[in-house]
């Protein structure tokens, strides 16, 4: 129980306010909290997918850094482009995904699902460090 609510109940117990007044106060308290929750900023939608690779000298042909920034719009457009895959090719894609342990039907990816996915990507962060190279994938 929070402090404001307890104070109202204490006033009621002390007889300083009656039950109707206590009810009105508690209702007003709940309404003010509801409006402040509604005013809270919605979670930020990520605009870019960022891939940063920092390979050290002992990796491949020498040290290299890669920094790629891809607009989320491009991901959206790319997934929508997936709807244009002919049915036969789609079956092949699904079969290849299944072979690699990804039981996904690409025809089931809908723009609504994609929006939900992108909204959740705000907290997405992958960090891989194998001693020779660091890979970081995140959204910003």
């Amino acid at each position, binding site marked *: 129980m929070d402090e404001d609510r307890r104070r109202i109940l204490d006033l009621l117990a002390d007889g300083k306010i009656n039950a109707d007044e206590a009810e009105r106060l508690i209702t007003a308290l709940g309404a003010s909290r509801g409006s402040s929750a509604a005013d809270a900023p919605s979670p930020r939608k990520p605009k870019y997918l960022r891939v940063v690779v920092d390979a050290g000298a002992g990796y491949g042909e020498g040290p290299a*850094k890669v920094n790629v920034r891809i607009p989320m*719009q491009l991901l959206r*457009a790319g997934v929508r482009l997936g709807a244009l895959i002919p049915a036969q090719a789609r079956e092949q894609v699904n079969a290849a995904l299944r072979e690699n342990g990804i039981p996904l039907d690409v025809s089931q990816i809908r723009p609504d699902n994609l929006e939900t996915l992108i909204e959740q990507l705000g907290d997405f962060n992958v960090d891989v460090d194998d001693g020779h190279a660091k890979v970081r994938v995140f959204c910003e």
Partner: protein
Amino acid sequence: MIPLIAIVQVQPSHGRRIRLWLPLFLVWLLLVVLGLVLSPLILIACLIARLNPFTAIWSLIRVFVAMAGTNIEVEAPEATVIVRVI
């Protein structure tokens, strides 16, 4: 908005830096002309693949539009390459 310029910058470890501003709007104009010339073939391809040609073209346009803001930087011992789509 459709990207209008791409900047390609190449900085070799020894040598002059090359910085190119590529006017993408010219590429889009060429693509429009090419699309009009090849429209019968595109239509036939869409019919064979059982696709709506308007949906297909619109999806491609969306991809081009969404390319704005893409940024690729590769830094290697031999050279640094930066590609920006504005």
